[in-house]
């Protein structure tokens, strides 16, 4: 009989709570969780297709071992879990003796929940080479905050006076709701959006600055300049808690509104209005994890943007980006708190990103394909991955080549994919709804949610890591746990509740341990070299490298990008579509079937000039090649700019984005700052990329 149970969607990273109706071990339908005390459910278009995702015919259902050449599904035969774990463990122990621990890379893709266990596994094995998709996702954003403030604080939107949303579109990237934005407007606050596109979020704002992509830093400097010139900044805060302001003021003066308007493609008036609106404090800044930093000047641009928090006197004060003094419980599963890596200076980045190494406790893996293929700085013999997607990297064909070459490659995944085709062992993981969950609600209530589905021979990723650790006799607090239940008990301990008592409480339990945030951290000293807010970075000033200016220098990427006459359009990849989540949902027919894909989004005037209309085929070129896309004419796209969603199996735009086109500070690719040409596809032709 069909039963409806509270469950975690888990298709993306949001962890939305849903009501799942299940019968005969299959999901019948899902809905956002409703009528549960403590729970605010949510369900987006992606989650609505959850049953096609979870019950997909490509799902991995048992461990597989390669017995023939790479590249063919028929080369793989089922193997028992204990046999697979034992073989992998023996191989890794032998490799460590022969080539040292650093010859093994441990890599985490999507999702993020298991990363502490994987970080422990890498550290206990002795390798500095734990890395993740954060090599091009969230870490550069964190670096900018660490450089300026020594911490990364969330916007206190519940108490802000004004909300600044910088290149974020929750209408498509979260549950689709604009309620948070509307709540600020309802209490009289202004919502300002900076985004190269008119998104539903931008369209709902009080002020939208439609800048050219990658000009964020110039705009922020111009706004800072107006705040300073018009004496609208928080002088007392700057004098007491900041360093480098005089040099910053002089630099920002180079960005008067009239000059900056031309750089950014907005009016002088709107820049001045922006500055006047945000003056006076209580400014919350909401920035998506990667939109600003997918640019070769990304960290510097984001530093300039977040300095507006200090300038307006909003930093770490209620209503700003702030450790809000609210009592919060926490599970002991923060995926950013990783075990200290051994031998950090010997990681595969080869010293190319020293500021990353100083601030980020994982190896920058954006050059992983080069490392494997060139064996520089040293040979990587073994790659142990959980959710590695080769299409994530710029020029992903290089990564596919590397996966063919690496001596020993283990893939843990949900689906059979092109990484599996190159692996020696393929291990099947549970989706979020197939494993037991403990959930902490915003009001500090805990639930135990047993999976409404039976996992079969699939395992939770952490269980796989524990079994590998046990087989290799590797130890840490987490690795010494007996099994996945013990892990759930472990992460509950920081909330003061045991798994046994939570299992016995179907209505859940309140957390017994909570902690309140402590705002005004600048009074106690920040974790920057100076202990203060740094307009001039103490860390960056240690390096004499291109792009490492201690001030938040605006280097216009368009001037660095090459032949603008041949490639006149600015290409942004990754701007969200509601039904897509990186590569994850293309295989879901109800989602991939909603729109033609791959698609190029153009302003209708640009399209018309090129003789293109909606639905036509267009060829997009960069120096790396040409690919064909279906045209979507969108009046919300800025003329001169095109948007293409990434990772499409029918043509991944990442093939046309250079693997050397990187931010020198973070190593992040210029996914949202690349030049291209667009032409009408006149006749069927050989279209390929090198």
């Amino acid at each position, binding site marked *: 009989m069909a039963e409806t149970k509270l469950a975690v969607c888990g298709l993306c990273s949001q962890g939305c709570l849903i009501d799942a109706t299940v019968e005969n071990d299959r999901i019948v339908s899902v809905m956002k969780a409703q009528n549960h005390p403590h729970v605010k459910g949510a369900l987006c*278009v992606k989650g609505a297709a959850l049953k096609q995702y979870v019950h997909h015919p490509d799902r991995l259902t048992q461990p597989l071992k390669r017995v023939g050449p790479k590249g063919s599904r028929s080369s793989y035969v089922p193997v028992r879990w204990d046999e697979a774990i034992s073989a992998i463990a023996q191989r890794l122990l032998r490799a460590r003796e022969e080539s040292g621990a650093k010859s093994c890379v441990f890599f985490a893709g999507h999702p993020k929940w298991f990363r502490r266990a994987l970080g422990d596994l890498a550290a206990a094995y002795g390798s500095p080479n734990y890395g993740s998709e954060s090599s091009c996702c969230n870490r550069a954003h964190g670096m900018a905050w660490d450089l300026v403030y020594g911490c990364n604080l969330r916007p206190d939107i519940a108490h802000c006076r004004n909300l600044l949303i910088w290149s974020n579109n929750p209408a498509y990237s979260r549950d689709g*709701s604009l309620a948070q934005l509307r709540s600020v407007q309802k209490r009289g606050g202004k919502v300002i959006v900076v985004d190269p596109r008119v998104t539903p979020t931008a369209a709902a704002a009080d002020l939208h600055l439609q800048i050219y992509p990658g000009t964020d830093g110039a705009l922020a400097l111009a706004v800072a300049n107006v705040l300073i010139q018009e004496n609208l900044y928080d002088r007392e805060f700057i004098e007491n808690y900041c360093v480098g302001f005089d040099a910053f003021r002089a630099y920002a003066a180079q960005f008067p509104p009239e000059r900056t308007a031309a750089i950014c493609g907005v009016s002088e008036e709107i820049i001045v209005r922006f500055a006047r609106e945000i003056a006076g404090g209580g400014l919350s800044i909401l920035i998506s994890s990667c939109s600003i930093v997918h640019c070769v000047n990304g960290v510097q641009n984001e530093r300039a943007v977040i300095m507006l928090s200090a300038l307006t006197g909003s930093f770490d004060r209620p209503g700003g980006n702030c450790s809000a003094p609210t009592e919060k419980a926490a599970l002991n599963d923060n995926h950013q708190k990783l075990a200290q890596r051994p031998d950090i200076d010997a990681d595969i980045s080869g010293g190319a990103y020293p500021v990353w190494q100083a601030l980020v406790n994982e190896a920058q893996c954006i050059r992983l394909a080069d490392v494997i293929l060139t064996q520089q700085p040293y040979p990587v013999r073994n790659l142990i991955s959980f959710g590695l997607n080769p299409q994530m990297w710029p020029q992903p064909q290089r990564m596919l080549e590397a996966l063919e070459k690496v001596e020993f490659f283990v893939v843990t995944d949900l689906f059979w994919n092109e990484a599996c085709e190159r692996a020696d062992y393929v291990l099947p993981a549970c989706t979020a709804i197939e494993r037991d969950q403990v959930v902490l609600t915003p009001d500090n209530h805990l639930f135990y949610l047993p999976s409404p589905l039976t996992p079969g021979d699939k395992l939770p990723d952490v269980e796989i890591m524990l079994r590998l650790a046990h087989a290799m006799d590797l130890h840490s607090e987490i690795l010494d746990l007996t099994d996945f239940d013990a892990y759930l008990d472990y992460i509950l301990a920081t909330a003061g509740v045991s798994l046994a008592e939570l299992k016995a409480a179907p209505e859940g339990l309140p957390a017994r341990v909570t902690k309140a945030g402590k705002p005004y951290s600048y009074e106690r000293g920040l974790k920057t070299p100076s202990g203060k807010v740094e307009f001039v970075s103490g860390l960056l000033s240690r390096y004499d490298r291109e792009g490492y200016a201690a001030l938040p220098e605006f280097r216009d990427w368009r001037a660095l990008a090459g032949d603008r006459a041949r490639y006149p359009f600015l290409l942004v990849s990754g701007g969200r579509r509601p039904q897509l989540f990186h590569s994850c949902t293309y295989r879901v027919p109800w989602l991939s079937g909603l729109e033609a894909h791959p698609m190029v989004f153009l302003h209708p005037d640009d399209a018309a000039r090129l003789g293109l209309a909606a639905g036509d085929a267009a060829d997009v070129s960069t120096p790396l090649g040409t690919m064909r896309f279906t045209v979507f004419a*969108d009046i919300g796209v800025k003329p001169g700019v095109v948007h293409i969603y990434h990772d499409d199996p029918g043509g991944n735009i990442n093939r046309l984005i250079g693997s050397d086109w990187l931010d020198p500070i973070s190593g992040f690719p210029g996914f949202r700052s690349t030049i291209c040409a667009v032409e009408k596809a006149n006749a069927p032709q050989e279209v390929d990329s090198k």
Partner: protein
Amino acid sequence: MSRIVSDNDKCVGCLACVVTCMDHHFTGDDPNAVSYRKYKPFDLPRGLTQYLTESCRHCADAPCIDACPVGAITRDAKGWTHVDRDRCVGCRACLHACPYDSPVFDAAGKSRRCDGCMACVQVCPNGALHLE
């Protein structure tokens, strides 16, 4: 009236209603799965090109009922119109009769329409859909 209508000022074009409709009416492997909510892009005065959605209006004076040559379309006591899929011959007379281009067709060519299940109303993150 019995119909589900969209407040297009609140709609963000996320298409959650479109897929939820399929989720609540079809198994994941049903080749005839189709959403009863149609969507297409519009250039909106607020400055972007965005999907808007709609489903059968279950008109008081529904021309599709008379147009159906096999009498497959009926109206229930609450005002919802229904297509008897077994009787539908796939002639699309309902589509030609409909002033709003509302009927949708599954892979077998059979006419389908909104049955007022309310799943789309429940899922809409911005409260754009409601029963009228």
